[in-house]
């Protein structure tokens, strides 16, 4: 067992966990943050993507204890109260989902992608960068649309009050 202490969505949290506990299970089971999903469990599908120290990572491929001392942002940490984050708003507007299972990971990946490309995104870049996120419903079309729209909104310095994803 180890003590895991993290800053999650702006709150300091800590708890004891077995060393083999994956970050995704710590988030879901210890902290009750079930927005982060477990899809493939083989690090391919990206449903478990969260931000650790400002970078998108697959939380099913990292031990909770590896992340100890880090700052984590999950899908629950994006919106500011009732105000959706611009990426969430764009997924809603452009219907970038059907069943919604992959959506938390898609949105966390998209937010990271947009942060890394402040100059803006084009369709080819979005599709390439979505390599690590699998959606079995949409055919990706509306996901790509939503990310392009969110990228535009965010580069314009939108008045959205969403918190900056760490």
């Amino acid at each position, binding site marked *: 067992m*180890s003590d895991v202490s993290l800053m999650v969505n702006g709150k300091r949290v800590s708890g004891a966990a*077995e*060393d*083999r506990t*994956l970050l995704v299970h710590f988030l879901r089971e210890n902290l009750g943050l079930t927005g982060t999903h477990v899809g493939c*469990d*083989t*690090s*391919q599908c*990206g449903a478990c*993507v969260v931000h650790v120290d400002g*970078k*998108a*990572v*697959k939380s*099913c*491929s*990292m*031990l909770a*204890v*590896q992340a100890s001392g880090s700052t984590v942002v999950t899908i629950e940490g994006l919106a500011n109260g009732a105000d959706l984050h611009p990426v969430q708003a764009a997924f809603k507007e452009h219907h970038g989902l059907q069943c919604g299972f992959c959506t938390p990971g898609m949105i966390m*990946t998209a937010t*990271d*992608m947009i942060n*890394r490309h402040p100059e803006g995104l084009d369709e080819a870049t979005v599709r390439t*960068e979505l*390599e*690590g*996120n699998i959606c079995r419903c949409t055919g990706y079309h509306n996901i790509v649309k939503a990310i392009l729209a969110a990228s535009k909104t965010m580069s314009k310095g939108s008045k959205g009050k969403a918190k900056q994803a760490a």
Partner: protein
Amino acid sequence: MYSVNYHRAASVADAAKLIKAGDAKLLSGGMTLIPAMKTRLAAPSDLVDLSKIKELQGVKVSGKTVTIGAASTHFDVANDEKLKKACPALAHLASLIGDPAVRHRGTIGGSIANNDPAADYPAALLALGATIVTNKRAIAADKFFKGLFETSLKDGEIITAVSFTAPAKAAYEKFRNPASRYAIVGVFVAKGKDGVSVAVTGAGDDGVFRSKEIEAALAKNFAASALDGVKVPAKNLMTDIHASADYRANLIAVMAKRAVAAANA
């Protein structure tokens, strides 16, 4: 995953002590080891985490000499401005590994220590004539990569960095598995003061190797057209459900041509 004891090493010396415990394994980005532990293909008693060790981080370029800390992530390598000038082919190669989330965690040291037969970095390091530096010694790339998932590392030996002389020209071209996107064939071509070297990943029965046929043709004329009609033997190439040895042999020539064209561009 079986139970495991995690240790975060503060320094290479600290890691060298910790690795002596039980059946311990070194952990860097964990992009191979953690999934392997989840499926119980690997079951170390202890994990020694190298990823927070400062001395293992970062890319240094001094004149023509490039040194990359073993715990530098693929993302760090792909985006390093000094490396993009000194050896853009290697930065580009790093940008093709896995997906963005994997590149944020996976490291160059972890990749070469694992020596997956379809990994990208081994082709680059072999073609660049790189040196793999450990906490014990310096190993030439052609002595380091031994076969499938096999290297000349001794038990408990820790890779600290890789270094190489920036080539005059280089490029990497990769034919990806259409679903999983790893290299079915990847060819790294480098032209330096010691001539041309060409290393192939993804295809060899025994892991990464240099293609003598392609090197011989390019030594005379470093142009894509020099490879017209050059045949790579299918002997010792892999056959699996994705590609036969003959297909891989043909792909090696095709990828080499593209790499030379890119290196000359």
